[in-house]
């Protein structure tokens, strides 16, 4: 019977899909572990910078640096959007892009000169569909963003900000809160709000009388850009980790759904086969009865 055959075809297709999604899930899991390790290692740098900043602040220093001061006007802004290069990762890209469109509208309403920069092909495709042309596109960031590449971008922002060509830098990305929670956010990176993180530190152990070479001011001048670079790098790492998690979860769901579908389809197939046999039997019996 044609129906049973059609069901077999679908069953095969769904089984194939399940294999693929299952594999993708495993790959995403492996990549997530790697990305997570990188993010944890990178955290050491950020922590140390925060520590030195805390040491500097003990030296009775007023924090003043071009990167920390709010410019008088906010006309020239930069929006960096971090999306993935590949799809099949659930609501990961949609979550980030949901923050982007309102921001673009707002910038239009405020007559800002917004420079839109996009990392990831998905974001580019979405914006193209919306009729927005990004000013810059980075396609090279996969699950292992390198510091050198981020450094280049960060340096450009810093130079622009100091010269007054950029008044504000926003980043739309997925923040990694824990392995069970990631959140798409729109964050202002420049001007830097504050340097020291909220991590509680015990005052007693930090009461060290440092010798500063050359001077606290000079060190501050160097450390502020370094802190900004570390922050931007962290955004990229967070985005990479979150992407892998999103893909893992999405593929897990897909595999489960495919499994469910397989059991429904095989039940349907068995029923169809049984009804085929029954009808054939009744035809034979009917035929034999007619001959008598």
């Amino acid at each position, binding site marked *: 019977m044609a129906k049973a055959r059609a069901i077999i075809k679908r069953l095969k297709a769904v089984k194939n899909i399940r294999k693929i999604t299952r594999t993708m899930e495993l790959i995403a899991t492996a990549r997530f572990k790697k990305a997570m390790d990188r993010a944890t290692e990178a955290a050491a740098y950020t922590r140390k910078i925060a520590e*030195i900043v805390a040491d500097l602040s003990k030296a009775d220093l007023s924090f003043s640096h071009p990167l920390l001061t709010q410019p008088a006007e906010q006309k020239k802004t930069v929006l960096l959007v971090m999306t993935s290069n590949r799809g099949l990762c659930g609501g990961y890209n949609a979550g980030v892009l949901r923050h982007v469109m309102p921001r673009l509208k707002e910038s239009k309403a405020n007559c800002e000169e917004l420079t839109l920069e996009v990392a990831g092909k998905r974001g580019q495709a979405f914006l193209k569909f919306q009729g927005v042309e990004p000013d810059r596109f980075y396609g090279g960031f996969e699950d292992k963003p390198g510091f050198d590449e981020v450094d280049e971008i960060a340096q450009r922002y810093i130079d622009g900000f100091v010269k007054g060509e950029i008044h504000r830098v926003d980043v739309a990305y997925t923040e990694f809160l824990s392995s069970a929670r990631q959140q798409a956010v729109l964050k202002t990176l420049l001007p830097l709000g504050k340097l020291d993180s909220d991590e509680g530190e015990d005052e007693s152990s930090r009461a060290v009388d440092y010798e500063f070479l050359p001077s606290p001011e000079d060190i501050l001048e160097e450390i502020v850009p370094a802190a900004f670079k570390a922050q931007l790098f962290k955004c990229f790492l967070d985005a990479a980790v979150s992407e892998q998690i999103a893909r893992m979860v999405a593929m897990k769901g897909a595999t489960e759904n495919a499994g469910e579908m397989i059991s429904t389809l095989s039940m349907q197939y068995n029923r169809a086969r049984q009804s085929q046999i029954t009808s054939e039997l009744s035809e034979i019996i009917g035929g034999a009865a007619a001959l008598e």
Partner: protein
Amino acid sequence: MAKELQLVVVTPETTLLDEPVSGLRFPLFDGQIGVLPGRAPLVGRLGCGELSVTTTAGPRSFFVDGGFVQITGATVTLLTARCVAAADIDRDAAAKGLKEAQARQAITDDAIEARFRDQERSRKMLALKK
């Protein structure tokens, strides 16, 4: 007094070194500094050049490119954007960098300074890679 120092080298991507050393030398912004166990606390800016470490297993050398140093008690922490073992320096890339820097046209003071910095960095890398 402590006999050993704990050297921690941190780059944005990873913690490169975390091991006990008996002494080390590295470039500060204005010249070399040597650190032995018992050094007073220090926070300083790094220059670029050779980081040479004396361990029980023998001397080792690395190339560091700017950053910060923090010394507290027996721990020396180097925060640097780039740190490579001397043996892993890419000679061709360094030579190319030097050529590029030498050929670059610099008009403003900043550009001249940047060019000088790049030249110095490449020269130091080449000198380190024997």
